């Protein structure tokens, strides 16, 4: 698949003598040194990355690291000093103003940090603004604005003014305005940065819910790593205008590229980043109800150095058996393996975040990781969960099957 958006060697230098700044940048001078010598500010320093269709690509970094500048070059609000921005193969950095306008009208929409709703227009007119600019008739505009408002749950507020809405609602209107023209790419510059934390959670979930349905290509700017990890299919970390690392949430938390990234991820809630899959043994030792006995069960547990194993009945999970129960069953002549099984066992979906596993792990039993058909695909040992949460990834995640 070719990239929806392809950014190559993008550089932006603010100031009177961008050329000189560019030369110095290429010679390896730092942002601070260039500012000292020329008075030019490096906004973006040679950024390159691809964004696939349907992805949420998060750009994060401290304030002043060039995130806003980067996202504004993507729809031409800021012209880059050098480099190219290919949207479906067309270069935004070097196209004519008329082409750029067409791209803005049809392909790329933007959602702003402080909402930037037009205070003199009703909510519906705000949402319909992009359609009006395209010359769509008033009735059709209204219909599509109402549809977009419905998507964000604000259909009832079409005739209110923005000032009558709360911050969270205003940003939903901002989102609806971005979606109304049905763009392929949505640029979001710290869209939830101005909202308080509870509301922010709400709109983040809302965005994820919408994205599941709409599958837009989203460039999402944030300075909040938790937000980045929650939303981003891929995450780019910026520092002084340069991109220092690009990867998935787990890659960035697991293997930070440098101290800057490490400092970012230091107090991250790892329980929200990693999934059950990341700590489960891929090919767990299991027992078969038909063939295994209490004795073979005890033997397998000794070999695998663990205290409990799952028992399958064909493909179905029959339950879990602990070493103690197996031992008790083996002493009792009447009891079989089936009598030792606990059918009330903890389970987790393979995509669940680790923090959702805390309750399951408290039973002390290994957690069964299942797929959509309730088949066992892995087992999470409580110790592996703790090791991942503490960042001690050297620990063996779970006992692997012996050959």
């Amino acid at each position, binding site marked *: 698949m070719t990239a929806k958006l392809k950014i190559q060697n993008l550089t932006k230098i603010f100031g009177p003598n961008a050329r000189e700044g560019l030369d110095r940048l290429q010679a390896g001078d730092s942002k601070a040194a260039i500012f000292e010598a020329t008075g030019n500010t490096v906004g973006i320093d040679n950024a390159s990355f691809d964004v696939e269709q349907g992805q949420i690509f998060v750009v994060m970094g401290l304030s002043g690291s060039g995130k806003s500048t980067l996202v504004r070059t993507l729809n031409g609000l800021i012209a880059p000093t050098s480099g190219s921005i290919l949207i479906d193969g067309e270069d935004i950095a070097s196209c004519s103003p008329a082409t750029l306008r067409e791209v803005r009208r*049809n392909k790329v929409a933007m959602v702003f940090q402080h909402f930037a709703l037009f205070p003199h227009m009703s909510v519906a007119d705000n949402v319909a603004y992009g359609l009006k*600019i395209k010359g769509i008739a008033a009735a059709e505009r209204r219909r599509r604005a109402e549809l977009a408002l419905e998507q964000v749950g604000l259909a009832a507020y079409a005739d209110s*003014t923005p000032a009558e809405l709360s911050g969270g609602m205003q940003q939903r209107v901002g989102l609806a305005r971005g979606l109304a023209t049905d763009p392929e790419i949505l640029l979001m510059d710290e869209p939830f940065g101005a909202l308080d934390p509870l509301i922010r959670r709400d709109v983040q979930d809302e965005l994820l819910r919408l994205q599941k349905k709409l599958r837009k290509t989203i460039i999402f700017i944030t300075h909040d790593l938790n937000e980045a990890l929650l939303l981003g299919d891929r995450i780019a970390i910026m520092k002084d205008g340069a991109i220092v690392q690009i990867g998935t949430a787990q890659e960035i938390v697991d293997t930070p590229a440098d101290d800057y990234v490490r400092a970012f991820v230091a107090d991250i809630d790892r329980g929200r980043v990693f999934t059950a899959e990341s700590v489960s043994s891929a090919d767990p030792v299991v027992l078969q109800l038909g063939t295994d006995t209490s004795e073979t069960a005890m033997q397998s547990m000794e070999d695998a150095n663990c205290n409990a194993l799952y028992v399958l009945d064909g493909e179905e999970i029959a339950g879990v058996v602990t070493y103690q129960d197996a031992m008790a069953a083996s002493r009792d002549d009447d009891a079989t393996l089936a009598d030792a099984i606990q059918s009330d066992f903890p389970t987790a979906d393979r995509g669940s975040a680790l923090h959702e596993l805390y309750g399951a792990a408290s039973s002390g039993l290994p957690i069964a990781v299942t797929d959509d058909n309730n088949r066992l695909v892995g087992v999470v040992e409580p110790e592996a969960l703790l090791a991942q949460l503490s960042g001690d990834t050297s620990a063996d995640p779970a006992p692997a099957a012996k050959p």
Partner: protein
Amino acid sequence: MFSPSDVLLIPFDDWVNILVREWIVPNFRPLFRALQVPVSMVLDWLDTFFNAVPMLVFTAALALLTWRTAGRGMAIFTVISLIFIDMIGLWPETMTTLSMIVTSVLFCVVLGVPLGILAARNDRVLAVIRPVLDIMQTVPSFVYLVPIVMLFGVGMAPGIIATIIFALPPIVRLTNLGIRNVRGDLIEAAEAFGSTSWQMLWNIQLPLAMRTIMAGLNQTLMLALSMVVITSMIGAGGLGLTVYTGLGRLDVGGATAGGVGIVLLAIILDRITQALGEANGVRTVPLRQTVLSFFRRGAPASTAEIRRAA
């Protein structure tokens, strides 16, 4: 005591006389005459119209307008004022003055708003316009009359041209200010959706600057009213002429009657345009908020209001 004029006495007045009489007047007279044509046309039409409308009909219409914009109290004031003016026998003069004012303000808007828009969109235009506006506002209104008479002659139209020049600066300045004060992120948003520069002006900048522009219109109107008496010295009529002739003949009663007429007209027009500006605000600022803003650090209510509207 020595003074520089002992050495050299510059015949400045002669130079100006020569420049104007020998060069500007013969060469440009037709141009200046042509410039008067649209002004005279609008003025004649309005003057005829206002004087043709029966007094009671006009009073009712203006009272209705005042009532809809500035409220009931102001409407009652309007009715009483107009009846008073009629009873002191100054109705025709008042209508003439009104038509002069409306003509001047109309031309100020037609010239000033586009100039203000240009200045707001282009720093170089602003750099050229700003000193010109400064000069226009610092030159005493009396001094305008000399070149105006030389170039345009005497009469109604030259009087109105002098008024236009004098009253133009506020509307240009405040149009420029209003558009420049439109929040940057709103401009950015409009641009991000692919607005052309006209769409931006029409949908975003002008509506959001409207309150500030209306404040400029109000100031322009007040300046135009302040020229009423002065222009009567170069042949303009109306209430100004009543005051001027009253002064000339030491007829205190006549001059006062004319003056009262001008003041009443000024109050009515001021209130209507102020109210129009408020109606155009993005949201009206409730009294409580205005009062509170006095106790807050930063800008007083009026400027804060303008900024918010912008």
